[in-house]
């Protein structure tokens, strides 16, 4: 036990002096997620808020053929500009970006409209540009509303009930609560949290195994009267300590960043405060030794720092697999899923975000499965360290 603590202290101190470890474990790893996430989400939100506030701009060619339609659009707050473009002029203008959407009213519009035949208009837009497509959708919806109004008037004049034209009334009931909607946005925050946990221990796991071998200090260490399990245990403990630090910094950063993200502007409330951060920490804690033991196990089999780095970058991606699987099949929280590490942490954290109650059993199963697998990985690592091939 004393040897284990000695190893822990030395690994902790040594890496505290390593700029590369500090950068990846305590700066880049924990802060990358919150900053990227904050920037992305606020841009996403600002954009959708802006778009619905901003007036729709439409360039109209041949507006004189449909004065009522033009008046209707103007009354709906559409900013109109009038030109006399041909279809190809309009195409060029949209392609070049000088016009967003062009509405072309052809000569025969008036004649066909009066004859109660479908009167053609053309909407020229670029559907590959999401901004442009949204404008075109809004214009189409307005023209559709205008057309419906005309259709109703026409049937009334002919003595028919306007309801004849509406055989089915579709009513959508959206059950998304404001918090629920925020969860969709915050869903991938959970991956960033797990990512920071692993990043916190990445360099330690490499440095204390493959790094020790590459430096040539391993052989002297292995010739000491110290049980190999104490060596592995001390190194694991130091790795876990850095992972916890990284996790704490990450959660604190999320709490701060989310104060500046205008979630409430879309009617969402995500209560990410100190309490949520603590709950996240408790949920992720059993994942820490599992991540540390897995990374140490992989790194122990590699010959060099560089090789360990290559393999461990793929270990960083492992937690995404269950999370991606869960979102593809939209899995709901279920006790059996608590057996899958990373997925169980993801689901539990999502439940916290949604303000849903968490079953104590789920929490226990999630922790037990992570800790059980961690013990297996640790045993495998210790076994490898007892073998003479460890010397490399």
């Amino acid at each position, binding site marked *: 036990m*004393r*040897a284990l603590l*000695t*190893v822990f202290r*030395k690994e902790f*101190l*040594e*890496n505290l*002096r*390593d700029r590369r470890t500090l950068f990846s474990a305590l700066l880049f790893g924990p802060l990358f997620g919150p900053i990227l996430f904050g920037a992305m989400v606020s841009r996403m939100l600002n954009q959708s808020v802006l778009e619905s506030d901003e007036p729709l701009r439409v360039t109209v060619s041949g507006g004189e053929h449909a004065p009522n339609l033009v008046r209707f659009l103007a009354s709906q707050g559409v900013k109109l500009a009038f030109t006399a473009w041909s279809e190809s002029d309009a195409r060029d203008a949209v392609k070049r970006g000088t016009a967003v959407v062009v509405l072309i009213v052809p000569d025969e519009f008036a004649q066909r409209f009066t004859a109660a035949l479908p009167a053609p208009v053309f909407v020229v837009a670029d559907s590959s540009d999401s901004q442009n497509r949204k404008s075109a959708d809004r214009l189409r919806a307005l023209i559709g509303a205008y057309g419906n109004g005309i259709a109703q008037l026409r049937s009334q004049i002919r003595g028919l009930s306007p309801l004849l034209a509406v055989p089915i009334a579709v009513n959508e009931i959206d059950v998304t609560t404001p918090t629920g909607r925020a969860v969709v946005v915050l869903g991938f925050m959970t991956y960033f949290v797990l990512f920071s946990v692993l990043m916190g221990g990445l360099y330690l796991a490499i440095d204390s195994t493959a790094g*020790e071998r590459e*430096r*040539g*200090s*391993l*052989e*002297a*260490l*292995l*010739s*000491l*009267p*110290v*049980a190999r399990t104490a060596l592995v245990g001390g190194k694991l403990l130091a790795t876990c300590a850095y992972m916890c630090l990284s996790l704490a910094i990450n959660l604190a950063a999320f709490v701060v960043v989310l104060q500046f993200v205008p979630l409430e502007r879309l009617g969402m409330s995500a209560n990410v405060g100190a309490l949520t951060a603590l709950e996240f920490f408790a949920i992720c804690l059993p994942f820490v030794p599992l991540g540390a033991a897995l990374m140490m196990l992989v790194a122990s089999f590699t010959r060099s720092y560089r090789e360990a780095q290559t393999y461990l970058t793929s270990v960083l991606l492992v937690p995404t697999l269950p999370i991606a699987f869960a979102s593809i099949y939209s899995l709901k929280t279920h006790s059996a899923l608590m057996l899958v590490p990373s997925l169980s942490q993801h689901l539990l954290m999502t439940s916290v975000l949604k303000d849903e109650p968490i079953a104590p059993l789920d929490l226990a199963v999630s922790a037990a499965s992570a800790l059980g697998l961690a013990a297996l990985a640790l045993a495998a690592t210790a076994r490898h360290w007892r073998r*003479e091939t460890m*010397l490399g």
Partner: protein
Amino acid sequence: MIEASGLCKRFGTIEAVREVSFRAADGEITGLLGPNGAGKSTTLRMLYGVLTPDGGSARIDGIDIRGETSAARGRLGVLPHAPGLYGNLTARENIEYFGALHGLSKDAMRARTADLSRALGMDGFMDRRVKGFSQGQRIKVAVARALIHDPSNLILDEPTNGLDVMAIRNLREILRDLKAHGRCILFSSHVMQEVAALCDRVVILGQGRVLADGALESLRSRLGAASLEEAFLTVLSEAEAQAAGEAL
């Protein structure tokens, strides 16, 4: 006292060490001499217990290294072939890390580190980080690290590699001093002058076998050679002739 009896080790189809037996006594410096690939490092690694022999046994002060590993290792200081240090720790921290792992108390460690620092001439760089050290400074730290628990036996694998003349002289003095204090020292080298200058006893290894074993003087007279170099070449060529005979 370090004893090897019938040590064997094979890696795949290669027999690296075959039936190696010898004894390094207390108060003596024993040299393990042999060309590259003779099995020196493999033999030493079995003696300090990081390799498991396929046959035979290794004993430190009569304690089997495989049986009571910790007790045997506690009596042994080791300077491996590549004695890597921790660059981000100071010389003192490097040395004390090993001391703590040997179970020394803080006070005992402090006193011992001060002694070693004085004896090895390390006072100038004890509290500097090891990162920028010269090869000579590194070896001193590694030797101090191997001696922190005041072991009665010391194994050094090619300790003079990469050292300049001054550093080599310095190391020789340290080893002679340890010998004067009754320690058992076993070191390997492929440089004959090195062995001739320092050793009381020589074990010559070739192709994984002990080709000759004895006190420096008796070895020279027995082989009728004027120098150790000649003796060394004689046993090596005899061994080669014998191997060729076996092949036929």
